[in-house]
């Protein structure tokens, strides 16, 4: 982007910082915005209001409904399967933030020293899994995790002489590790691209100054590099938490034998649960209640992270 689009800096310097522009007369801005306004009104505001209402109804298919008040939420609070779904999803979100992002950051730091050409090549390679849709990734890894003949078990066998018969997708305790491993393949490179871009905009002289003052590599990273790319880190953390709480397609395809649930519900996520109750069993009301809980969780977590990052701004 940079350098390709003509930047306004030059003109701004010539004519001085432009005063706030006066109000545009005429319909032009509204016409440009009309498609967005109309489609948002119809396909965001209306369903949003409906989603509020729906959560208080029991429905059977899209056409019949009965008002039940808070019964949907009470049902969810008591349903052990929903608890399991929430637990699994939260575990996945924690692993994403505390395992996947450090790995992405590590790779970005390793690559940051390389020349532009080297950087470009490896960035391309490491990003490539992200082009593949989650369903396709799930299908592919379902085959890779196959016991005895799957690539993953064969590699494990070659490296440490065990694990050839490991049944990843039908052993409850191994289902989440399998999903995590797949998600690492899929997203480590994706997050790395953001970190790498942020690292390039970090002020080198600050790092140099810290090093001269006797800071070691880790201290320079923790006290200088990381704080100066704080905005991107917060952005990536929020994105991956939001993404984690919406995990659905990957386990669905990976655990296709059990419709995405996994043995003993070990792979059940909140959105898988939503899909089960709303679209397979036909209770859109209960599904909306689940949707509200997910939306609330995402909103609260994003808010906390934004607050924390603001607090870090005034040292």
């Amino acid at each position, binding site marked *: *982007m*940079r350098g*390709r*689009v003509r930047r*306004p800096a030059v*003109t*701004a310097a010539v004519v001085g910082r*432009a005063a706030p522009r*006066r*109000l*545009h007369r005429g319909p032009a*801005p*509204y016409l*440009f*915005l009309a*498609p967005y306004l109309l489609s948002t009104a119809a*396909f965001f505001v*209306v*369903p949003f209001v409906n*989603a509020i209402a*729906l959560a208080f109804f029991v429905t059977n298919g*899209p056409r019949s409904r009965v008002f039940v008040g808070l019964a949907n939420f009470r049902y969810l609070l008591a349903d052990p399967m929903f608890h399991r779904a929430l637990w699994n999803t939260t575990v996945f979100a924690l692993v994403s933030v505390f395992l996947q992002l450090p790995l992405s950051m590590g790779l970005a730091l*390793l*690559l940051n*020293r390389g020349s532009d050409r080297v950087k470009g090549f*490896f*960035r*391309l390679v490491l990003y490539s*899994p992200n*082009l*593949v*849709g989650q369903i396709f990734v799930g*299908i*592919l890894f*379902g*085959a890779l995790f196959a016991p*005895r*003949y799957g690539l993953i078990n*064969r590699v494990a066998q070659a*490296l440490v002489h065990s694990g050839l018969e490991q049944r990843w997708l039908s052993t409850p305790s191994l289902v989440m590790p399998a999903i995590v491993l797949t998600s690492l*393949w899929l997203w*480590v490179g994706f997050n790395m*691209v953001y970190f790498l*871009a*942020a690292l390039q905009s970090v002020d080198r002289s600050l790092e140099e100054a810290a090093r001269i003052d006797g800071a070691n590599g880790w201290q320079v990273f923790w006290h200088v590099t990381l704080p100066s790319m704080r905005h*991107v880190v917060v952005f990536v953390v929020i994105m991956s938490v*939001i993404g984690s*709480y*919406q995990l659905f*397609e990957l386990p*669905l*395809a990976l655990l*296709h034998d059990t419709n995405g649930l996994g043995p003993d519900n070990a792979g059940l996520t909140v959105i898988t649960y939503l899909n089960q109750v*709303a679209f397979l069993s036909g209770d859109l009301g209960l599904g*909306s209640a689940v*949707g509200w809980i*997910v*939306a609330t969780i995402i*909103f609260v977590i*994003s808010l906390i992270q934004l607050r924390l990052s603001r607090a870090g701004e005034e040292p």
Partner: protein
Amino acid sequence: MNPLQIILLGLGGIFLALWARAPRHPRAAFAFARYTLVGLSSLAVLMPFVWLLAAIFKDKSVFNEYVFFPPLGEISRRTVNLDNFVELFRGKPSVQGTVHFWQYILNSTVYASVGTVVQLVFSSAAGYALAKYEFRGKRQLMIFMLGSMTIPGVLLLAPLYKMIVSLGLVDSLAGLLLPGLVNAYGIFLFRQACMTIPNEMLDAARIDGCSELMIFYRLVMPLVRPMAAAFCLVAFLGHWNAFFGPSIFLQSADNLTLPVVLNLYVNEYSNDYGVFLAGTALAMIPPAILFFTLQREFISGLTSGAVKG
């Protein structure tokens, strides 16, 4: 000892040798370790693709016999052939009559292309308006947009489904496209790109008698082309790989898109991996082609919002 272990031990040995040669300033050793780690990660990322490439051409009878391709001496029509693709493209009976696999490729292509073009036009227009006009309600609109982006799409899926059903658009391309005509994220990307266009340039065009629409089409769009390219790829990938929406809104066998149908094939061909893997590999080709042609614009466009913000 097998080759894999020997290679890893060898790499470790080289690292130690480099370290031992200059223990005070192990710069060479660290550089070596850096490239080794990055190289091994890239290898781990590429391996599933290589495995897939081999898997789709292997005959069913030798699918599990070789990890990747059979050794050169074993390659023949019996071990490496196109049987998986023949089976994949064989017409299959359904309530809607015989359906061929190319029908799904066509459905996905139409859905992804139309969806991308519509989103491109609408999102760029809205982004331009937000970047270059001052008008009443602009601030409130931007706040509303940011707020709407925090609402997860799944929350709206149930009521949207109800709406599409009552509009009678279920199981149709229109019903699938309507909920996603504009992309708020895309509007912000285009707003960011349009902000870099100098106002004087737009005013000059106005003085020359250019209409507002013509300014947008003739002047602004060419200037934000890199961002448009990046956005097209994001939008295309989003549509091409979309599963949740299409799996709910589409019903007839001849209307389905690739992710939906391949997810069904996994169960249908549970003993014949090669067939659904062949379909999966085909589904990866269009995004790959687009990515390699647009990758420069894509990576910079994607990260510009985050890095500047």
